[in-house]
């Protein structure tokens, strides 16, 4: 402002006092119950192993962790507030961005929630393409996890191997949607474009070659004594704790709970494919590593089946109130022109109500809860983030362990801070 004063557009009403003094600042109290022997350190927020900007306030007795307090919010961007200001079809672009490792999962959960509310079902070809893209996204997400976790535990070469394969997945994203990362490929009502013959050929070649790469990772890590020392028996999470703490995804399956939304609450035609859920009983970091490696193999199996059985037909619902008409129709049909105009000036309005749709992402249950008040913008969009919930088990796993084990624990939680903070 010209006069240099800074004012809010609206002064918020006086708020009720917090029952406790605002306390995210860290105890600098010298009279800590542990006396002088307890050392409180800040783990992060700019530590390279924290996958973004996670800050953990850790109390150490010698090298033993006695308390862990995650401090989050450094990447908060107000995504849910932004979504309320966008039209229903525009929200897809923000679902790409909050969890930058699993854009397609979040596209899908949002699209499923909107379709559920409107009551449409996408054609079989779109469903199969959604499955293919989701499993590719799982591979690229796990590649980042494996690469960075390996890097942190001393296997520096893992990062280069994993980024090599991830790049192939990004090439596939680019081929089918035009974008490498924030694809916005899956949209309410279908997908943004049909698969090109070149995409199908590239994808088929990738699926054939990829299992060899998984063998390479396993050669490097699975029997590697250093890697096993750093992960076996580290970060133990019992089955009861995993359930109590609401863990999902590899965190839950690594603790011996056979729960996978693709099997237990199938969406987008997952029930048609033959695959196994990866479950390990050990509950430690190594078990979670095994779960994710197995998921990579199962992902290639699913993609192969989906490619082989890819049905023909349209990739979008035939609903002019929801999706624009094809370009050719605009030249000849008045009605198409009206629909086009209405969609691009006003958008569509799902009926009043709410719906929740969840998908099994690389991190766990990523869901989307939407509330419609019958207008062309959402009343509320809530992203149920698996990372946000999974991160809360950090303290349970780290207590009593060494501070160096924290690296392995944070690594195998695989929390994406953009998704935690939204």
């Amino acid at each position, binding site marked *: 402002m010209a006069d240099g004063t800074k004012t809010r557009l609206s002064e918020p009403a006086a708020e009720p006092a917090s029952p406790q003094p605002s306390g995210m600042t860290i105890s600098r109290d010298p009279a800590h119950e542990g006396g002088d022997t307890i050392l409180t350190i800040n783990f992060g927020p700019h530590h390279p192993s924290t996958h973004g900007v996670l800050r953990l306030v850790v109390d150490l007795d010698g090298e033993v962790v006695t308390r862990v307090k995650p401090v989050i919010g450094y990447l908060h961007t107000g995504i849910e507030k932004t979504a309320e200001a966008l039209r229903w079809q525009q929200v897809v672009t923000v679902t790409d961005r909050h969890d930058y490792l699993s854009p397609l999962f979040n596209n899908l959960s949002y699209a499923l929630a909107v379709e559920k509310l409107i009551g449409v079902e996408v054609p079989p070809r779109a469903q199969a393409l959604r499955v293919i893209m989701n499993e590719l996204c799982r591979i690229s997400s796990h590649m980042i996890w494996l690469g960075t976790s390996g890097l942190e535990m001393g296997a520096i070469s893992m990062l280069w191997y994993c980024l090599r394969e991830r790049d192939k997945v990004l090439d596939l994203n680019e081929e089918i949607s035009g974008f490498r990362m924030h694809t916005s490929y899956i949209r309410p009502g279908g997908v943004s474009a049909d698969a090109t013959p070149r995409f199908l050929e590239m994808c088929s070649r990738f699926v054939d070659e990829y299992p060899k790469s998984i063998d390479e990772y396993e050669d490097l890590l699975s029997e590697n004594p250093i890697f096993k020392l750093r992960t076996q028996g580290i970060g133990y999470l019992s089955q009861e704790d995993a359930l109590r703490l609401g863990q999902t995804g590899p965190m839950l399956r690594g603790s011996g709970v056979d729960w996978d939304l693709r099997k237990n609450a199938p969406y987008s035609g997952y029930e048609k494919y033959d695959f196994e859920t990866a479950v390990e009983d050990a509950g430690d970091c190594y078990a979670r590593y095994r779960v994710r490696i197995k998921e990579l193999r199962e992902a290639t199996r699913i993609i192969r089946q989906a490619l082989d059985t890819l049905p023909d037909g349209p990739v979008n619902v035939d609903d002019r109130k929801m999706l624009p008409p094809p370009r050719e129709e605009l030249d000849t049909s008045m009605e198409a022109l009206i629909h086009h105009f209405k969609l691009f000036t006003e958008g569509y309005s799902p009926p009043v109500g709410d719906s*929740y749709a969840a998908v099994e992402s690389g991190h766990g249950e990523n869901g989307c809860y939407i509330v419609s008040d019958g207008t062309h913008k959402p009343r509320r969009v809530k992203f149920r983030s698996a990372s946000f919930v999974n991160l809360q088990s950090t303290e349970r796993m780290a207590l009593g362990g060494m501070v160096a084990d924290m690296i392995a624990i944070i690594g195998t939680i695989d929390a994406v801070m953009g998704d935690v903070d939204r």
Partner: protein
Amino acid sequence: MTLASIATETGVSAGDQWVTVPAAQIREAITAARAEGYDFFGFITCVDHLGRDDGGRPPYSGAGEAESPRFEIVYQLRDLSRRRQLRIRAFLPPQDPVIDSVHDFYGPANWDEREVWDLFGVRFQGHPELTRILLPDDWVGHPLRRDFPVGGDPVDFSQEHEEWQTAPRRA
């Protein structure tokens, strides 16, 4: 007490089962839901119904609630063994919205309740540490309320807008 005896209204929205319970009885409702098998946590969130055409009263809200509820607290729960979901709703008034905390039933409810406090200003009675979680401690207001404008916070630039748009003066 069964959930059905507490609920003021039940229904299905887009295929999702839901029940509305009085906000004062949320702990009884959660206890009953857990006894019925819904012991796996989905999420807790809030919806601000400010300024709805129907006077702030959503069409699916239950009877016996406050005069004009504004905040709707949503509990999404899951039953892993029977593979079903349940949504519990509770409505709160516009002034000083308070509801009992359920952090001792579900571990992750701790952070979700802090998030709702942070972004909506709904207090959870009995929460061990109800502080801001996503926003800075000194933030004023609760940005996911519908009367908090998008872009309502001034951004500090190192130079004033007018200055950097004009060409630099020649020496």
